[in-house]
């Protein structure tokens, strides 16, 4: 069955350090993958998306993600985090068969000063 796993419920990073948030998916078809971000007391916003082509996709605020078919992964990265990046990040899989969205459980990013 299709699924999205974000193995880290919480990640703590010092301000200015690099970041990787992990996402693994399970799906036999062509995956369309997204990262959404939820800032405190707000709704969710799209950060970036991958359909095909270059496996590294750029998003807003310096975020990027790399798709790996061999590893069934879509990890999110940022070279230097800022305190304003504190949020919950969701990895999402869209199935090509019926456009249904499968959500990961989210990773809470905590930035240390």
């Amino acid at each position: 069955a299709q699924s999205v796993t974000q193995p880290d419920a919480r990640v703590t990073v010092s301000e200015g350090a690099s970041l990787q948030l992990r996402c693994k998916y399970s799906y036999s078809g062509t995956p369309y993958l997204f990262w959404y971000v939820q800032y405190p007391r707000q709704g969710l916003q799209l950060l970036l998306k991958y359909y095909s082509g270059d496996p590294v996709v750029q998003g807003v605020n310096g975020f990027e993600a790399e798709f790996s078919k061999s590893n069934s992964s879509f990890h999110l990265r940022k070279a230097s985090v800022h305190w304003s990046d504190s949020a919950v990040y969701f990895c999402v899989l869209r199935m090509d068969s019926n456009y249904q969205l499968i959500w990961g459980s989210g990773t809470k990013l905590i930035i240390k000063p």
Partner: protein
Amino acid sequence: EAAVTQSPRNKVAVTGGKVTLSCNQTNNHNNMYWYRQDTGHGLRLIHYSYGAGSTEKGDIPDGYKASRPSQENFSLILELATPSQTSVYFCASGDVGLGQNTLYFGAGTRLSVL
């Protein structure tokens, strides 16, 4: 700028009472969605709609009804609220399909059922 507005932002209800959560979008999107968010579960789809007059069951529809009277409005109805329905509810709009995959979310409604 795409806009999705939810009301109320906070709601306290009694067990067995009726609760209606409202959502309005100005994006002219055909599809609208209701999710609930609980710790450890991410977002779970309750109901969705392809357009006015249409409602479809999502992954966890039990105990919920939905109504889409117009393109702009999509309501979630709890006829007999239970404490297990205490959660944060998000409405979203978007035309999920080929070339169109972005969902636009409201700010959420925090519901407590006592």
